């Protein structure tokens, strides 16, 4: 099919605000028999219509095309087999189930590809291979990206490879370089464009302006944080029933914008900290809107039940990680009763200039942890294997992490991975005064 203005307009009707990209790609795809660009690199943010546009074009023009996703095909072999078998399927138009082609290296891939494409019924049409999420190609075999970007040269067939990615091509260059593909940019949608696209899925039972106004309200809350069209649409669909509520109950009519806004605003604000972060699932959010209470988000389950000594061990680890070692005498020596000598004070000041709340936890040796542990536990604790095994189970629970090598039995080093909130909660359970022991809070 020749690319005429009618087809062009038809595509534009389906894909909004992408005139430049559509015309560029259509020009590059060219006529069927003529050869096309070796490789095209398409990039842009998520949900800017990269895949959708390509799909529409391929469907409209009925071009032979293959789609592979690098997330599914995570190594060379899967990728080769996926591509080859799709070519086979294209050729036979799904008439009979063909034999599965096996291929595990580039050499065989090129050979089989050549053989498949030189069959008569395929002719000299350009075959389009779309590789989605192609940033993953970099983590696979090193030769994949350079080889795919010059596939038409290696096979001698008429192939055009399309790479789709979120990140810029600069990050793909490695080694002695690759054959540079032609780049097509998909810029972000502006606020107006987002609004227009979102209004496309307006429900029929309400007037169009009503949904338009709703989307504007939604954007005013979320636009500063999120420009992902897919997420915005999801949020719009979730919160719409709540927005309509005053109308169905008869409290307000379509003209009463102020009332509608006052009704929905708190819900949208709440949605920001719950649905937007995927803390509660969308079905849970719907239940919450209907008024069922008692649903807690994922992050509210942060309190944990630990054995008594494990709690103290965790607190000791937190203190060891966040207090400089030089201040241990000030906090934990019982004889000096929290009085430091002048020298110790100066040393402590110079030792810890930047707050550990900013710099993150430091590592500490096991001996220091045990010393602090014995000093904060009031009762007499026998040094048993149980304590040490609790320590190692804290490591497996990812409350602590072992920094030194695993086989080092002599004075292993640890780091505390727990947040301040959790430690505060645990300290509250034990009625332990954490603030008194934390260097950051004393020296402020």
């Amino acid at each position, binding site marked *: 099919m020749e690319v005429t203005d009618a087809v062009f307009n038809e595509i534009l009707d389906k894909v909004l605000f992408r005139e430049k990209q559509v015309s560029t790609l259509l020009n*590059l795809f060219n006529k069927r028999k*003529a050869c096309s*660009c070796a490789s095209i690199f398409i990039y842009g943010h998520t949900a800017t219509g990269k895949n959708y546009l390509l799909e529409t074009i391929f469907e409209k023009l009925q071009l032979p095309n293959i789609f592979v996703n690098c997330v599914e095909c995570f190594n060379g072999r899967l990728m080769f087999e996926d591509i080859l078998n799709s070519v086979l399927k294209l050729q036979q138009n799904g008439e009979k189930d063909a034999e599965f082609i096996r291929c595990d290296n*580039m050499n065989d891939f090129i050979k089989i590809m050549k053989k498949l494409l030189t069959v008569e019924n395929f002719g000299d049409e350009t075959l389009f291979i779309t590789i989605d999420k192609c940033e993953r190609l970099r983590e696979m075999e090193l030769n994949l990206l350079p080889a795919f970007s010059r596939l038409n*040269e290696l096979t001698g067939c008429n192939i055009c490879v399309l790479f789709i990615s979120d990140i810029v091509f600069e990050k793909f260059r490695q080694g002695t*370089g690759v054959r540079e593909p032609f780049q097509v940019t998909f810029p972000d949608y502006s606020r107006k464009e987002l609004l227009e696209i979102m209004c496309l899925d307006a429900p029929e039972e309400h007037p169009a302006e009503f949904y338009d106004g709703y989307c504007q309200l939604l954007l005013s809350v979320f636009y500063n944080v999120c*420009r992902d069209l897919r997420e915005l649409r999801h949020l719009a669909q979730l919160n719409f029933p709540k927005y309509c509520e005053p109308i169905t109950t008869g409290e307000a009519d379509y003209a009463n914008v102020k009332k509608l806004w006052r009704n929905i605003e708190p819900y949208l604000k709440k949605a920001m900290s719950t649905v937007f972060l995927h803390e509660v699932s969308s079905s849970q959010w719907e239940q919450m809107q209907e008024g069922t209470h008692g649903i807690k988000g994922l*992050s509210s389950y942060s309190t944990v039940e630990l054995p008594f000594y494990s709690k103290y061990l965790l607190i000791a680890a937190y203190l060891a990680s966040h207090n400089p070692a030089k201040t241990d005498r000030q906090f934990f020596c019982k004889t000096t009763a929290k009085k430091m000598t002048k020298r110790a004070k100066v040393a402590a000041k110079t030792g810890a200039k930047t707050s550990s709340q900013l710099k993150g936890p430091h590592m500490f040796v096991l001996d220091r942890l045990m010393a602090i542990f014995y000093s904060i536990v009031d009762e007499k604790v026998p040094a048993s294997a149980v304590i040490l095994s609790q320590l190692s189970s804290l490591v497996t629970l990812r409350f602590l992490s072992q920094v030194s090598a695993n086989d080092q039995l002599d004075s292993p080093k640890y780091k505390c991975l727990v947040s301040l909130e959790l430690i505060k909660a645990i300290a509250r359970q034990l009625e332990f005064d954490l603030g008194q022991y934390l260097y950051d809070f004393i020296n402020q």
Partner: protein
Amino acid sequence: MAKDLKSIEEIHDTIKRRVFADDMVPHLIGLDNQIKELQELVLKCSDYGESNSALLVGPRGNGKSTAVSYVLKTLQEKRKLENLLQVKLNGLVQTDDKLALKEITCQLQLENSVGDKIFGSFAENLIFLLEALRTGNKDCRPILFILDEFDLFIFHKNQTLLYNLFDISQSAQNPVLVIGLTCRLDIVEHLEKRVKSRFSHRQIHFFNDFVFGDYIDIFRSIVAVPPKFSNKTTARIWNKNVEALCEDSNFRDILYENYCYNKSIRGLHALMTMPVSLLSRNYPFLVTGDFAEAKNDLIIDHKSVVLHGLSVLELCLLIAMKYLVETFDDGAFNFQMVFNEYQKFVRTRGHSLQSFDKTVVLKAFEHLLALELVKSVDGVAANTPKEYRPLSLLVEPYQITDVVRSYPECPTELTQWATSAVR
């Protein structure tokens, strides 16, 4: 008239093939010496059975493969290469010696191969191949090995393939000519000692040592119609149009800019991609305006396109990072510090900006990580909490300020924060 349209489409097709599929141009400009040297090598091998080895070295897109295929094609047309066997290998495709060996057996159509299948293990194959080559003498058919992406062959285990190929070329066995194509200048340093001593150290350089005048000639040679074109009138009109284009001073400026930016012929092809693909029945000639547009698209800063699509919150974080990098000498920072800076800004200056929770900010931050605008520095990532991993900023500070200036509806406080740099 219909005939004209048909022939003009024919012209378009040839040019498209030249730009997109690297079809041969009738006369290669600026590669005369290299081609002569190469031609001599090939002729000596095919006529006298002299074994030799050579490396073609030069940056990407400078016509190494083109020169080789040009030489082979012209000699073949003169029927001088009938007895020469050709084996083409590519470092990207034959990723280890086993595959390379199979490919050689296959391309030489030796007895242990039937169709595409090759029998025997690696060792058997190697012995068989060497035996076949060793029993030959000067009168046997010479073999031409072309190793594309030669630099990848040096990473093969023990460089077995290279050693054997060079060894055969040094001793009185079957005549072979080994031609390696690479873009690494230091390639000889990476050969093992025993391999290096067997290599003839003949290098042919492809360094684009032409001036701007030649560059225009190259452009002309790509778009001009061959003299023996069927429809003479159309060809004349087309060539006249090309001449007019080459004389146009605006067009020369565009070409000169591209020449300064990327001298290789692949770079010229990149510039021509869009204008050439626009050619059609209704749009028959190349126009300066298209080249101007193509040039603008080529020199676009892709990172600022990505930055432009960020949300205000993400931009805030980037500005906070820029502030941290510029303020502290060591430049090390983590999410917690960025968040602190962000909070300070929102509390004191950014009145019109909403203050967001840490979790929301963290989500924005992870988006930046996914876009690779920020990167975790080293291997400590696994045993440090997410907020405290040391980071490095992969965007230049000036790019951030530029984007803030061109950002639609950017809050004024944000612009001030971004542009008021600490000196």
